[in-house]
């Protein structure tokens, strides 16, 4: 059964007719500000027990002893699930049933492959008892030395990077071009391991009823989770009901069901009662993915006029010892700058950490900060303004493939962003600007880009004889605003006002809306919704145009348009009739149709499809103390059609803050002896606070893209991170004259070099 979710629109923002493009406030807003939006951990079915995982404190080795008896003696403890005491699984958690299935630790053996790995689960009547029960297990280990850094193991050429991209790509001869270049730079940049740290910890409330499983859990991909769980538990996917109406953020870490979530389900099976399992914040540093550290080398050459002749981008990344995910950092150099010779390559090392995963702009973000820093460095070497340099090397076709862009309004982004920021007149050399209090002021920029992807989605549309509509698609709202934007698309697709459409989403029994990732959810689920709407309208039009009693008789499908609950003749809008009249006359209570959204293979092979943007940053740096503050961020983005400008602005702000965070704050610090993360918390793993981002400004540039998808949407979830990180880093250089090449930039990196 689906939870009752009452969504409302602020009446001041209600629109009839065209919903797409309106800055509606969030339809889930009232629920969220009242604390009534029910996140997974807010559920409490009768008889529920609490499960807490015990995690390994070593990074590599074996568990040799668990004091199960001590845990069980603790008042309130009901069960302790261990490798030798757990329900059977139908599938090996170390198997790879499909390329998107990552290996999990489900107590399959006593092996430890990273710190914070689950080694047991304690189930108790209360959270307090389960927590202490887990501590009482006092594990003993056979410890093996941990391998943790980029230099701790032999590197190799990964089979692929990202999702099936080749690890090495060559276009032209970079070595020859570099040899003949008039200006060249070579620089190495290092980025740190980062953890998604969605505010909502991964949580699951699981109940079994025979071989039927019911779960509340945050998911960016319910259908994929259903398949994975079905395989693991040997039950049909249809037996699994997932409710994920609200995610407290995901950023990629909730794209695939994670080990601890499955352990919650196993625990429920073991005890035969509903179980709630919520990760502690520190337990999120391991089993739910991360952005791996990278070391990137860029070699760039230009001719005498500042035209690029070569970009060679190499990235060294880590993955886990037992599974494969390779951050495609160097691929960031494929699309942005018009260089006749481009080479990108990757190497990888295996370390004793959890497997890295997609984290907001995976590859694009890491690659972008290095590339945008390097472009700044080569522009300087050419004596050119960084914006002029980028314009001079503007890619009219996608450099790596030679394909035309489906649309690309980057030039306008540069122009508008620079104007809004006040870029003109920026001194070329660093350390020229001070504010009236004496702080060093620096301006930097970066180009943002993110591919416009499409996955697969389904939707089902219904028009009822009372004139209302229903749209169903099991989409995921992680904060990007699916409840609102998809309802806007649904309303337009059905030719109704948004308040006349019931939009059902967020559960796995609805048509599969695909994965909410890759900034493609609005485009993909939106296309499905649009097409389902079009299909049901077509059916309705069929009824009318084939019915002599209808004013639309004989108009033919193509000759009819739907608006405000009525169909009109396209050639004569005076003639039309309401949905209600059509259905009533036909004696139908309702009419339904389905639609799908997917990539168009022809468009994909003919065009390069990307969103673009330009980000401008101002930082202030204390000239003696080295503390940095990002005082202004301006971003101009071209991302196809904007469904809801208010929500898009928020997405872009969020991304830009992630960019600033990448450049200045985020870093998991690891003890190289133990392989444990020392700041697995939110006090010392710094993400920006409100005072860190005093001024943000976003503008969007219209793009009409007939190729990307039926709605012309490119996606805005991740692009904001790219460009921004480099812009901030470049601004720090411009303020200080110190080129930091390790991120985040620390006070100690600047301090000794400031005067």
């Amino acid at each position, binding site marked *: 059964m689906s939870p009752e979710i009452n969504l409302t629109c*602020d009446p001041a923002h209600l629109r009839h007719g065209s919903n797409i493009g309106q800055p509606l*406030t*969030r339809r*889930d*807003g*009232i*629920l*969220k*500000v*009242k*604390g*009534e*939006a029910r*996140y997974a*951990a*807010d559920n*409490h079915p009768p008889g529920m027990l*609490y499960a807490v995982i015990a995690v390994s404190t070593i990074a590599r080795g074996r568990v040799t002893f668990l004091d199960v008896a001590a845990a069980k003696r603790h008042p309130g403890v009901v069960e302790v699930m261990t490798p030798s005491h757990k329900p059977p699984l139908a599938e090996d958690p170390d198997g790879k049933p499909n390329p998107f299935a990552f290996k999990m630790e489900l107590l399959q053996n006593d092996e430890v492959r990273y710190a914070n790995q689950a080694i047991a689960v304690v189930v108790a009547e*209360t*959270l*307090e008892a389960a927590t*202490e029960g887990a501590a009482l297990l006092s594990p003993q280990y056979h410890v093996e030395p941990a391998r943790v850094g980029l230099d701790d193991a032999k590197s190799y050429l990964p089979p692929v990077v990202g999702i099936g991209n080749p690890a090495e790509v060559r276009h032209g001869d970079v070595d020859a071009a570099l040899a003949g270049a008039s200006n060249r730079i070579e620089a190495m940049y290092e980025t740190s391991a980062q953890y998604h*740290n*969605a*505010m*909502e*910890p991964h949580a699951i409330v699981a109940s079994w009823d025979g071989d039927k499983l019911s779960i509340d859990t945050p998911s960016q991909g319910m259908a994929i989770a259903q398949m994975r769980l079905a395989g693991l538990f040997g039950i049909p996917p249809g037996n699994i009901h997932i409710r994920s109406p*609200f*995610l*407290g*953020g995901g*950023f990629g870490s909730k794209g695939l069901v994670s080990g601890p979530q499955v352990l919650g389900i196993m625990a429920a099976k073991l005890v035969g009662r509903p179980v709630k399992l*919520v990760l*502690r*914040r520190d337990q999120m540093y391991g089993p739910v993915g991360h952005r791996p550290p990278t070391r990137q080398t860029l070699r760039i050459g230009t001719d005498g006029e500042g035209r690029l002749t070569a970009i060679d981008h190499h990235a060294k990344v880590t993955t886990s010892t037992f599974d494969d995910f390779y951050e495609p950092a160097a691929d960031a150099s494929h699309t942005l700058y018009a260089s006749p010779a481009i080479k990108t390559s990757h190497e990888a090392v295996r370390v004793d950490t959890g497997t890295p995963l997609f984290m907001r702009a995976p590859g694009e973000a890491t690659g972008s900060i290095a590339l945008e820093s390097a472009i700044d460095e080569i522009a300087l070497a050419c004596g050119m303004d960084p914006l002029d340099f980028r314009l001079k090397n503007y890619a009219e076709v996608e450099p790596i493939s030679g394909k035309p862009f489906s649309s690309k309004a980057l030039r306008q982004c540069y122009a508008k962003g620079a104007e809004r920021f006040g870029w003109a007149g920026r001194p070329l050399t660093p350390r020229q600007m001070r504010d009236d209090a004496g702080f060093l002021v620096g301006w930097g920029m970066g180009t943002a880009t993110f591919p416009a992807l499409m996955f697969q989605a389904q939707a089902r549309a219904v028009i009822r004889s009372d004139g209302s509509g229903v749209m169903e698609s099991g989409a995921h*709202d*992680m*904060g*990007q*605003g699916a409840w609102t934007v998809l309802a806007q698309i649904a309303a337009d697709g059905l030719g109704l006002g948004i308040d006349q459409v019931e939009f059902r989403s967020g559960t796995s029994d609805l048509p599969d809306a695909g994965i909410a990732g890759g900034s493609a959810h609005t485009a993909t689920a939106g296309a499905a919704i649009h097409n389902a709407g079009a299909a049901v309208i077509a059916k309705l039009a069929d009824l009318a145009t084939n019915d002599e009693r209808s004013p639309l008789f004989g108009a033919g499908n193509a000759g009819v348009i739907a608006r405000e609950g009525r169909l009109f003749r396209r050639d004569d809008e005076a003639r039309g009739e309401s949905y209600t009249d059509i259905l009533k006359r036909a004696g139908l209570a309702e009419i339904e149709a389905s639609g799908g959204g997917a990539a168009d293979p022809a468009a994909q092979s003919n065009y390069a499809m990307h969103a673009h943007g330009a980000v401008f940053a101002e930082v202030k740096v204390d000239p003696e103390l080295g503390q940095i503050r990002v005082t202004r961020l301006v971003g101009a983005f071209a991302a196809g059609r904007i469904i809801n400008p208010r*929500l898009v*602005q*928020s997405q872009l*702000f*969020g*991304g*830009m*803050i*992630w960019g600033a965070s990448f450049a200045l704050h985020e870093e998991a610090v690891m003890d190289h002896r133990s392989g444990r993360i020392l700041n697995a*918390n*939110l*006090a010392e793993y710094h*993400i*920006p*606070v*409100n*005072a860190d*981002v*005093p001024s*943000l400004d976003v503008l969007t540039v219209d793009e009409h893209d007939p190729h990307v998808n039926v709605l012309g949407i490119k996606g805005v979830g991740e692009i904001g991170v790219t460009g921004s990180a480099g812009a901030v880093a470049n601004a720090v250089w411009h303020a200080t004259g110190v080129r930091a090449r390790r991120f985040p930039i620390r006070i100690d990196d600047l301090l000794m070099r400031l005067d």
Partner: protein
Amino acid sequence: MNFSISLTVNGVRREIELDDPRVTLLDLLRERLDLTGTKKGCDRGQCGACTVLVNGRRINSCLALAVSQDGADILTIEGVSRGDQLHPMQAAFIAHDGFQCGFCTPGQVMSAIGLITEGQAGDDPERVREGMSGNLCRCGAYAGITEAVLEAQNTLTNSDQRRSA
């Protein structure tokens, strides 16, 4: 050992039997009183998601022992609006899109209400940002949050003036 405490939660006095002194105010609210609007983001005082007002002051309920709050007056997000009538702060959060995923939002709203009661920030955006810096938002809704607080501060001051006039 059992502990009997009494709390006034959102205006309702409750006598509570606690069988465990370890229960934090946050876990009491969420797991035992079915008030799940208050969120747990870190459980260690590091994020602000669990912010509630205790005797009118905002605190992190995850670092407060429930037994120690005996006799206190607690206001949680569930007690902020009057039925359908949103608190001006809640309305301002919606209008300024001061959230995305919404997970930090109950804490932000409670913190913002506490901030205004404290009366230290006034209409200075920089003081508002500093005063709201104990509430992390991973979605990065800070711009909207600051605008919302400033607007609500304005609304509340005006209505106070009207009331006292």
